[in-house]
């Protein structure tokens, strides 16, 4: 199914997938070694955004459009989790 793509574009999309995956892997260093909790939350938020980019790239590489819906849902879940952790850290409670 990916044979409909031009070969240059397919190579570039593969390369961008590799770079995004490596960036996600390097960001997990900050999740493990981050000195404070907000460091870890920021790093996890960055990982979520990177995974959104990976889903979008895979939607273009495999030419299956519903992976764009996957990326939108991942963006929504990342935003909700960030807000939830911020509220939990400051107020010690999520839903009062």
């Amino acid at each position: 199914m990916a044979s409909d793509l031009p070969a240059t574009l397919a190579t570039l999309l593969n390369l961008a997938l590799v770079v995004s995956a490596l960036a996600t892997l390097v960001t997990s260093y900050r999740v493990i070694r981050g000195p404070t909790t907000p460091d870890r939350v920021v790093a996890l938020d960055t990982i979520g955004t990177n995974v959104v980019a990976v889903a979008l790239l895979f939607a273009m590489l495999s030419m299956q459009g519903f992976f764009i819906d996957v990326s939108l849902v991942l963006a929504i879940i990342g935003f909700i989790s960030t807000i939830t952790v911020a509220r939990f850290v400051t107020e010690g409670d999520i839903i009062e």
Partner: protein
Amino acid sequence: MIDLTTPSVPLAAASSAPSVGPLKATLVAALVLVGTFFLLVGTVGIIRLPTVYNRMHATSKATTLGAGMIALAGFVFYGPGGDGLMALVTLAFLFVTAPTGAHMISRAAQRMGVPFVAEVQWPAEDGGEGSEGDEGDGSTKAD
């Protein structure tokens, strides 16, 4: 009789598979390159910068711009309507929510007492010592 020639995911095969001409391929390639570059910039920022405020200053702008450029590439790839419209919705959602999330995390970090980088202090809230808040103003507002 079951038609064995249809693919196993008929919905995807029916709705997608846009034609990719040379102009569209060039535009998608350029947007993907710019987006990947910004993703790399955000990663370097989160590894190298000293405090959490500087780190979220780097990631919330660079990573959002990178994923936004890749979403724009998806919009160009799938065309206006259907899946391309979902890519545009993803772009708008990222641009609205990423600064909001970074702002809430930075406020939470400041309430937790995470220290700023040296010689930077909070701009004077109660009119007191605001003498050199002028200098630290730019770094403190790292959203």
